[in-house]
């Protein structure tokens, strides 16, 4: 390892420090995260904060139309971000919609990370038959187009009732179903990545060293392997949240996401798809919000990956 240090210097290399010298103390600690990462964190915090505070913010009622000002453009008086065909306030609807969209995105990935992460960790660590079975399970479910699987699950678990979903009970139920459906879909994805990472870490000598100390398998798995797998999981989870934010919109296109008149970013976009010019603010505003949030999440996922040296190919 050390003798080969010199040869790490090759064309295009940017990491000459490690090549020329053994890592001196504190080298890695000092690397900051960069302004862009903080902007990303700031944006996401803002979105989350707004979503949480929606009930106490001075907003118009999201589901009540203002029949005097339908189809208001951006920055209209009284409707800062415009209004839709029936005059409902876009600002209010995106803020309330953020609750649904974020809940779905974060909830389903949390579910997927817990289950998929656990299964992947066990598969990668135990190896043998456990791994063969779980690995096959992950791969088989990746053969399903994910959007199709999610659609099917939602459609089956919560058939859309003609009456719509205005009541809060309906709203909560649908969110739960979507979280569950998308969560299930994300299990094999997250599981596969966790498994790959767990396999590579389980082969390290320190794992054998821990066994040689007499540590139980459980201890080795949780204390030695898991902490090293977490960065890969975290970075893919960030990407996952981004993917689900987008996916929610796709579900809305099929009419199985949050039901009107309740808002979500996705169904706001969908509601205008057939009539793009009618009230552009209605689909442009949530599109921009999705775009910015996805951008921030993608970037942060990348930062985590770079920081912990998770190979992109491992994802």
């Amino acid at each position: 390892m050390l003798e080969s240090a010199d040869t790490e210097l090759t064309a295009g290399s940017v990491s000459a420090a490690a090549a020329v010298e053994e890592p001196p103390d504190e080298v890695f600690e000092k690397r900051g995260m960069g302004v862009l990462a903080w902007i990303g964190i700031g944006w996401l915090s803002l979105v989350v904060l707004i979503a949480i505070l929606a009930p106490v913010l001075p907003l118009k009622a999201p589901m009540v139309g203002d029949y005097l000002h339908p189809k208001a453009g951006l920055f209209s008086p009284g409707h800062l971000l415009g209004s839709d065909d029936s005059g409902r306030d876009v600002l209010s609807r995106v803020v309330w919609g953020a609750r649904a969209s974020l809940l779905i995105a974060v909830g389903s990935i949390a579910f997927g990370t817990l289950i998929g992460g656990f299964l992947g960790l066990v598969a990668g660590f135990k190896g043998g038959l456990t791994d063969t079975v779980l690995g096959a399970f992950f791969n088989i479910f990746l053969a399903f187009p994910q959007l199709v699987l999610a659609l099917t699950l939602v459609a089956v678990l919560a058939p859309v009732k003609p009456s719509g979903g205005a009541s809060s009970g309906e709203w909560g139920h649908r969110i739960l179903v979507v979280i569950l459906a998308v969560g299930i879909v994300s299990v094999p994805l997250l599981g596969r990545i966790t498994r790959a990472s767990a396999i590579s870490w389980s082969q390290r000598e320190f794992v054998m060293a821990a066994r040689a100390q007499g540590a139980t398998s459980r201890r080795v798995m949780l204390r030695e392997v898991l902490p090293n797998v977490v960065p890969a999981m975290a970075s893919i989870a960030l990407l996952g949240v981004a993917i689900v934010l987008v996916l929610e919109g796709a579900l809305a296109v099929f009419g199985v996401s949050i039901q009107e008149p309740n808002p979500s970013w996705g169904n706001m976009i969908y509601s205008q798809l057939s009539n793009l010019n009618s009230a552009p603010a209605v689909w442009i505003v949530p599109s921009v919000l999705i775009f910015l949030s996805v951008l921030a999440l993608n970037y942060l996922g990348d930062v985590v990956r770079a920081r912990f040296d998770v190979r992109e190919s491992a994802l």
Partner: protein
Amino acid sequence: MAGTGTAHLRPPGETILRVEDLVVEFPAGRSGLKVHAVSNISLDVKEGETLGLVGESGCGKSTTGKAIMQLPPPKSGQVLFEGHDMAKLSGEEQRRTRTAMKMIFQDPISSLNPRRKVEDIIAEGLRIWKVGTPQEQQKKIDDMMLAVGLDPVLQRGRRPHQFSGGQCQRISIARAVITEPKLIICDEPVSALDVSVQAQILNLLEEMKTRYGLTLIFIAHDLAVVKNVSDRVVVMYLGKICEVGSPDVIYQQPSHPYTRVLLDAIPIPDPSIRPEARAKVIGEIPSPVAPPSGCRFRTRCPKAQSKCADEEPKIKEIHSGQFVACHFPLAPGETLPTRNGSGPLAS
């Protein structure tokens, strides 16, 4: 030459570890063939002794060390540690022996968990076995860090990447010694280090051995290093034993042609010795998937006869305390023919 037998083993009462007929095989990829990594190796270690296991890559020395630790357990053969058959111990009992038998690994970077602090790495053994109160544990960790030449106050909270290779190896030693084991298996502990650092670590190992009354199995490919630390040396080739004996005797008067070749291949920092003039061996180590019949060294041995292909040599005592597995051992002072140039490889 490279052969089997137990003639070199000492009476069971005198030894702390006795390994008989150890066999380790594993599948070679998906081909259905087997890698014969270790084939019928026997060895023993006395308390307080350092046993050197030496040979080139692929000779099975590291596999032997890991099989003794049951990581993973060998295919067959007995490992008696303090009279207990390791294979017969239950999982829990086997885990208990882990306090008494420790291991130090080759790669100083990969053998330490990058996410954990140094003090946690060192304390692992204490915590697993719940030795002492947290205060006592902390005291032990600090003492141990000092003993291996690390600064407990400054360095205990750091993580492995903040240390150099030599320092990482010190951490590994501290981790192994802290539970006061009887036997430590050192698997190429200095191969990845620079010469100057290598000397530091070798000295440290010797020092720890005396201070804590340790018994060591020292695995390495560098004969000079092995000679420096060992009381008894086992030379291995392709999963078999070639020669066993005290280092001074073996190095002065090797009886196995392979030992001779190995010794002559060591580059000596003395310009007056012309390297071309020293004994050379042709080719490279054959594949352990299909090892040669009879003596496994015969394909490269300058003294090989037809007998070597037909019959596997048994380990026999050739001089007092020197054991060799060879049909035609070297007489004292006998040299091997030198070969001209780098020569073509055996086909």
